[in-house]
C-alpha cells in the first residue's frame, strides 16, 4: 500500500501563549475509507519524533510508517473497517508548520522566534484538520507516549467529539525524571556551537548536540533487559588497540548510528520546542485536578502500559485509570508484560493488537 502525505492549509491558529500563528500547514496521511455517516474515523497521534507517515509505504521515501505493524487491513487499526488518520504535530519538522518553516513576516525560518507551543495547541490544530475533513466525531484516538497525552487532551477538550481514547505508555504530566532527561537533551543541542541561538538554517545544523540528545533518548526508550539481550557486552571488531575512546561496544555503535540517523530527519529547534511542550503539559491545568479535568470526558478508555517501561512507568497510566474510575467512567486497563521498555508500544504489538482490535470493534458496535 503506497501512501502519499497530504497537506491542509489554514489561515491562522491561536496559541496558548497569546500569539497567533499565520498561516499554518498540516501534513497528514489517511488509510482506509471514511464511511457514509463518517462514524469510523480514528486519529492516530504520533510520539515525540514521529510524523504523519504512520502506515503503508511512503510514496516519497519507500519506507514503512512508524506504526505500520498496527495500522492496515485486518491489523489492530483495521483499515478495511476504519478510516485512520495521522498528522504531523504543530512545531514538527515533517511537513507541519514548525520552527524550521519560513516566517512570512521575515521571509526567513522562524528558528528561536517561533512562538512557544503547547500540547493543547497541537490538539487545536488537529481539531481544525478534523473539522476541515468534515468529521464531527472520532470513533477513537490513540497514541503512545506524547501521542497518549494528545489523546487525553482531546477527550477533555472536545468531549462531544471523542467516542473513545487509547492512551498507551503515557502520562497526564511529566515527572521530574522525564523533565530531567528532556533537559539534558535540550542542553546537548543548545551547547553545540552550531546551534547559534536557533539561527542555523543557512549553515550546518547542530548535528553533534542533536545526535547526543537522541542517544540519551534511545537509552530511556529501552530497558536494562532489552539492552542486555540486544547488545550485551558484545564488542566491535578491532584492528588495532584503540585509544580507549573509539567505538568498542555494539551498544555504542548502535547509539551513534541512531544519533547520526536522527540528525538527517529531525530539526534541532523542533526538538527543543516539542520537548518543552511535553514537559509543560499537565492535563489538570485550568481544572484544578486531574479528576476535575477527566470529569468532562464522555469517552470510553483503553489504557495500556508496559511492565519494563521505566520512562513512562505503569503508575502513570494507573493515575489516569484511577481518576477515570473515580467518576465511574468506562475504562479498561492492562499492563502488558514486555522487556522492550518504552519502545514496546512500537515493537511488541502482538498483545497490544488483540486489545486494541477488540476494544475498537466493541466501541464501534456500541456507538452504532
Amino acid at each position: 500500500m503506497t501512501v502519499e502525505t497530504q497537506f491542509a492549509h489554514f489561515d491562522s491558529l491561536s496559541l496558548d501563549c497569546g500569539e497567533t500563528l499565520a498561516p499554518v500547514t498540516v501534513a497528514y496521511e489517511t488509510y482506509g475509507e471514511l464511511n457514509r455517516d463518517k462514524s469510523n474515523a480514528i486519529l492516530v497521534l504520533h510520539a515525540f519524533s514521529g510524523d504523519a507517515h504512520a502506515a503503508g509505504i511512503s510514496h516519497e521515501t519507500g519506507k514503512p510508517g512508524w506504526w505500520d505493524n498496527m495500522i492496515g487491513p485486518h491489523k489492530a487499526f483495521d483499515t478495511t473497517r476504519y478510516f485512520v488518520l495521522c498528522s504531523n504535530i504543530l512545531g514538527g519538522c515533517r511537513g507541519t508548520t514548525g520552527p524550521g518553516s519560513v516566517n512570512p513576516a521575515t521571509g526567513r525560518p522562524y528558528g528561536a522566534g517561533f512562538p512557544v507551543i503547547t500540547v493543547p495547541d497541537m490538539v487545536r490544530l488537529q481539531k481544525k484538520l478534523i473539522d476541515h475533513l468534515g468529521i464531527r466525531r472520532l470513533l477513537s484516538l490513540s497514541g503512545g507516549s506524547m501521542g497518549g497525552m494528545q489523546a487525553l487532551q482531546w477527550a477533555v477538550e472536545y468531549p462531544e467529539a471523542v467516542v473513545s481514547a487509547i492512551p498507551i505508555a503515557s502520562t497526564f504530566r511529566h515527572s521530574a525524571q522525564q523533565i530531567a532527561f528532556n533537559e539534558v537533551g535540550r542542553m546537548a543541542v543548545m551547547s553545540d556551537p552550531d546551534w547559534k541561538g536557533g539561527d542555523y538554517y543557512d549553515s550546518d545544523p547542530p548535528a553533534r548536540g542533536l545526535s547526543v540528545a537522541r542517544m540519551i533518548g534511545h537509552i530511556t526508550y529501552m530497558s536494562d533487559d532489552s539492552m542486555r539481550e540486544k547488545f550485551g557486552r558484545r564488542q566491535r571488531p578491532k584492528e588495532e588497540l584503540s585509544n580507549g575512546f573509539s567505538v568498542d561496544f555494539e551498544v555504542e555503535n548502535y547509539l551513534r548510528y541512531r544519533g547520526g540517523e536522527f540528525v538527517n530527519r529531525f530539526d534541532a529547534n523542533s526538538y527543543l520546542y516539542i520537548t518543552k511542550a511535553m514537559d509543560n503539559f499537565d492535563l489538570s491545568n485550568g481544572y484544578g485536578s486531574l479528576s476535575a479535568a477527566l470529569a468532562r470526558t464522555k469517552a470510553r478508555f483503553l489504557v495500556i502500559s508496559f511492565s519494563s517501561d521505566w520512562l513512562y512507568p505503569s503508575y502513570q497510566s494507573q493515575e489516569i485509570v484511577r481518576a477515570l474510575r473515580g467518576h465511574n467512567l468506562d475504562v479498561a486497563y492492562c499492563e502488558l508484560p514486555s522487556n522492550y521498555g518504552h519502545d514496546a508500544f512500537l515493537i511488541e504489538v502482538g498483545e497490544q493488537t488483540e486489545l486494541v482490535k477488540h476494544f475498537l470493534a466493541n466501541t464501534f458496535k456500541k456507538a452504532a
Partner: protein
Amino acid sequence: MTTAVQHEKAFVRQVLGRSDYAIISELVEPGSKVLDLGCGDGELLAWLAENKKVTARGVEISPVRVQRCIAQGLSVYQGDIDAGLADYPDQCFDFVILSQTLQETHRPLNVLREMLRVGRRVIVAFPNFGHWSMRLSMLLTGRAPKTKLFPYEWYDSPNIHFLTVEDFEDLTVAENLVVERRIFLHGSRSIRMLPNLLAAVAVYLVRKQ
C-alpha cells in the same frame, strides 16, 4: 418455576459451567450496573452483559486474563482487589460480585466493607471450609485438608483465609448486614439442610441496613 426459567437455568449452567455463576446470574437484575471482582476470563461478566444487558465492569489481577476480558469487549481493570476499590465513588454499582475469591484476599473484611460502600448489593460466593469432607480429611489424616474442593498443598494454596458458612453468618451479624438471599450448593444441587456440613459453595446476597 416456569419451563422457560428452568430452561434458562440449565442453559446458564451449561454455558458457565459453574453452579455459583448460575445462581449469581439469577440474582443480578437486568440492566443493572455490575462490578465483578476477580472476574477471571470474564465469562460471567460477558454473559451478564449479553443476556441481562448489564453495564459490566471487572477487576482482575492476572494480565493474561485481563487481556482475554478486554478482547471480549469488557471494561476490566488490571489490579488488586485488596486495594482496588478505593477509587470508586460510594454506591455507584447495583451489584458487586466476589465469586470464590474472598478466601484469597489479604484483608477480607476490608474488601467486604469496600464492596458494601461502592455497591447497593453485594453477592459473595465462597467455598465452605466447614464441609464434612474437610472436617473428615483433617480428622483422619492429621494434615492440612486436601479435598476436591480445596485441592492445593498448604504451601501453594491461593486460599489464605478459610471460612465456613457459620463464620460468614457470624460476620453478617457483627457487621449488621441484611442477608437477602442465602443459597447453598453442592455441585449443581441445592442444599437445604445442614448447609455448614453439606454445602460445598455458599452464595450470599447481602446489603447494608
